[in-house]
């Protein structure tokens, strides 16, 4: 009989090995049915203590939220401002190799460490508070946005750039008329996305002492104020929802 589809043995063996490893690893970590049952019981008690959420300390909550938002906005703006030249320098179609290669390396280093680790480093280096959070999230934004900017620039049509260059335009005018129009809408999209994720991330850096609502959240956890924890979590969720709606509106307006 003729085979219409060739059997893919490497994929079958690979899937089998993966399944076997998952089962073995579960037993290694001591995850048993009994452990799961106690865990769920504890979870129930924990949830019960979170209800009702306690908004009586709303001033503390608001202060933390506002600081988180400020950290997010400042670090996004700084990250984008730094990403514009870095993205251009990293784009292999417009920058010479001696410039693009080290710039790409620098951007890769910014991306390689998790932003919480970067935040810890900055707290140790420049002290507790919002400045460390801004610095950490700026580095994180840079690693992400500069890379996306560079990729967007590498995808532009060089024919349009060539035509602007042929008119006798200088390098800056070529960027303004030949490059920027081709990438502007994507740049704005990336920047909005980064603002969105910085809002989320800025709620966490406080846990390691880098300012924002995260510090308040961590303190509430440590004092077992689970009803206040619930209030903080609800407030964060509301903030992210609002940010999502605003970003969506801006995107729609730009279409």
């Amino acid at each position: 009989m003729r085979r219409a589809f060739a059997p893919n043995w490497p994929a079958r063996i690979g899937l089998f090995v993966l399944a076997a490893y998952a089962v073995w690893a579960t037993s290694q970590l001591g995850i048993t049915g009994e452990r799961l049952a106690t865990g769920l019981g504890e979870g129930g008690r924990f949830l019960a203590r979170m209800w009702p959420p306690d908004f009586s300390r709303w001033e503390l909550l608001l202060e933390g939220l506002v600081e988180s938002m400020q950290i997010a906005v400042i670090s996004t703006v700084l990250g984008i401002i730094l990403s514009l030249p870095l993205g251009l320098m990293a784009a292999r179609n417009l920058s010479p190799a001696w410039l693009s290669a080290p710039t790409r390396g620098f951007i890769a280093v910014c991306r390689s460490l998790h932003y919480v680790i970067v935040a810890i480093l900055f707290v140790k280096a420049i002290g507790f508070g919002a400045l460390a959070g801004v610095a950490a999230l700026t580095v994180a934004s840079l690693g992400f946005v500069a890379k996306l900017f560079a990729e967007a620039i590498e995808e532009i049509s060089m024919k349009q750039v060539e035509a602007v260059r042929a008119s006798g335009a200088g390098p800056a005018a070529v960027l303004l008329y030949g490059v920027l129009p081709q990438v502007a809408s994507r740049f704005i999209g990336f920047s909005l996305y980064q603002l969105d994720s910085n809002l989320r991330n800025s709620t966490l850096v406080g846990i390691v002492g880098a300012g924002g609502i995260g510090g308040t959240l961590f303190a509430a956890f440590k004092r077992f104020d689970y009803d206040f924890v619930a209030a903080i979590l609800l407030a964060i969720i509301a903030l992210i929802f609002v940010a999502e709606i605003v970003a969506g509106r801006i995107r729609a307006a730009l279409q």
Partner: protein
Amino acid sequence: MTQPILEIRGLVKEYQPGKPVLHGIDLAIGAQGITAIIGPSGTGKSTLLRCVNRLVEPTKGSIMMGGQDLARLRGGALRAARRRIGMVFQEYNLVERLSVMENVLTGRLGYVPLWRAWLRRYPRADLDRAFALLDAVGLPEHATRRADALSGGQRQRVGIARALMQSPALLLADEPTSSLDPRTAVEVMELMARLTGEAGVPVIVNIHNVELAKRFAVRIIGMTGGRIVFDGPPDAIGNDHLSEIYGGEDWI
């Protein structure tokens, strides 16, 4: 011939060392009319044109224009030379996300300061001229439309307006009609011939269509294999020349 505006001597271009695409081109272009370069694809017509405004770097030879060797210019001097050389492209090469007006004003980027270009604060004279050119190419109502909303023929009209906006001393046209349907191709050629004739700007045009070349050019250059094999008025070109330029004769 009157005093030539462009004089090319011994122009060689090698994209890979030892494999020249242009084998020492000698060519003088007069101060008037359309010069058509015909020849098969890949014969170096486009490379020749792009060497003149240095979108391609020549390997050897000189390109004299206005007492300067274009092949040697760098930086600001090169940009100052480029702004006097308009170029029309096969695929129009408009910046698609800019408006028609912005595309036409791109022709002034070599002249206006950067802040004016950035803030779109062009001198009144430039704006008036841009509107006049849009009227002349038959797109009076399209100034604020985005370039990617135009048809091919309309885009090439904007391309011509952009090139003329540079107040060029010379216009290069690289297969300006090859992406257009036959009727639009004739209309675009007629427009280009009329406007450059009125402005007294000489044109060098690469073109595949021999009939169009004969109809609009005052002089035809036949190229094959990176060399010039015919140079003369349109009525002097015969089937034996076409056979030499394109090879074979069954198609003639």
